[in-house]
């Protein structure tokens, strides 16, 4: 599924992306799930607005970090969130 080249990930309508001040991390809230975002997780999800493919997200992330980004890591992170219903 993460190998789906045409997929343009979009954060699910049911999800709320916000800062958790108690745990000092960013979280993605769904009706039945909380995903704690580590590392560049938040930056990746901010790019998931349905306009970019996984490849384009990886590239945009690389530009923002001015360095190469592990494409496999991004793809597997997005694939996992898709399975959990966090991404459409």
């Amino acid at each position, binding site marked *: *599924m993460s190998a789906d080249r045409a997929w343009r990930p979009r954060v699910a309508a049911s999800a709320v992306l916000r800062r958790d001040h108690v745990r000092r991390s960013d979280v993605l809230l769904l009706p*039945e799930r*909380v995903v704690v975002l580590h590392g560049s997780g938040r930056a990746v999800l901010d790019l998931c607005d349905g306009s970019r493919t996984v490849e384009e997200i990886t590239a945009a992330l690389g530009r923002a970090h001015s360095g190469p980004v592990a494409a496999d890591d991004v793809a597997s992170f997005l694939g996992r969130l898709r399975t959990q219903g966090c991404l459409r």
Partner: protein
Amino acid sequence: MTPTAPVGAEPPPPWALLAELTHACPLRCGYCSNPLELTRRSRELRTDQWADVFRQAAELGVLQTHLSGGEPLLRRDLEDITRAAVEAGLHTQLVTSAVGLSAARLDALVEAGLHSVQLSVQHADPERSDALAGHPAFAAKRAAARLVTDRGLPLGVNAVLHRHNLDAVDDLVRLALDWGADRVELANTQFYGWGLLNRAALMPTGEQLAAAAQAVERRRAELAGVLDITWVVPDYFSGTPKPCMGGWGAVSLTVAPDGTALPCPAAAALPGLDPPNVTERPLRWIWAESRAFTLYRGTDWLPSPCRDCDRRTEDFGGCRCQAHALTGDAARTDPACSLSPDHAALVALTRADTPAAIVPRRPGGRAPGRVVG
């Protein structure tokens, strides 16, 4: 998450709050897991008391609240309660039977900031759903689903599964899709409260379960990314206990209609907890220090054979309420575990051949004279 905190350290903060706004409900579901003795309406927390609970919960680290019951729509101040939860910064989900969810009511809830709705159905077939609910509610549910999705609110469908609807799992998934849900929870009955009285009548057969589990696997694969399917395993059959509530006092807390705070909604039935009340104690103290929340937290209290088991940090010895209901001792290994000395007695309960009729939930506190099973 570390299961055992260092001595003197605060436990990790809770993630979720189950707010049981009322025990009143128009439905008469025989599987109802609410306690036999329901809280009277006159003893329910007021709006401002709930607002205070939400503020304290958010400060403690709670991120989500499920506005539940009973039927929360029976609270005339549900809009104000919802707004208070949203203002506290919580993600709010309404857990409802849909009875009483008019367009005007939903508009007011959306206006208050409600994030999500979970709708219960009892069967995919309207007549059978109404019969199981003991109330002509199916048409209202279908209409409510439309109202929710029309407003762009995410919809979840929930069905409690048992002998009388497990064969409809495929149809329930189809219903969830047709109604525009983005998730469906297929939860095999957990036998607590009223539902425990009906255990024999609700107990599925192994064949039913195997077929349903297969259907779920197939539909999950087909619908990945379209519909999120949650399957709550029937622990009487699995041989492995559930990590109840993700561990005692580890993930979430429940506040009952009268303000009693408990690690889980079924824990009201446990002896010796001395349950604290939010009207008398700060939520932070309740979570970190009360006897009710610390008694079975972590792994230090575990009995044998759990304390040496490789799975002890996965299931924490299983469910305390189930251990108490089936053995009379809340500190024993959950009999759902195949390693429990009481497991054979539990397995025997899954082999009842002549199921009794379901006794519909009664509104008051009066249980039928005879406890089934």
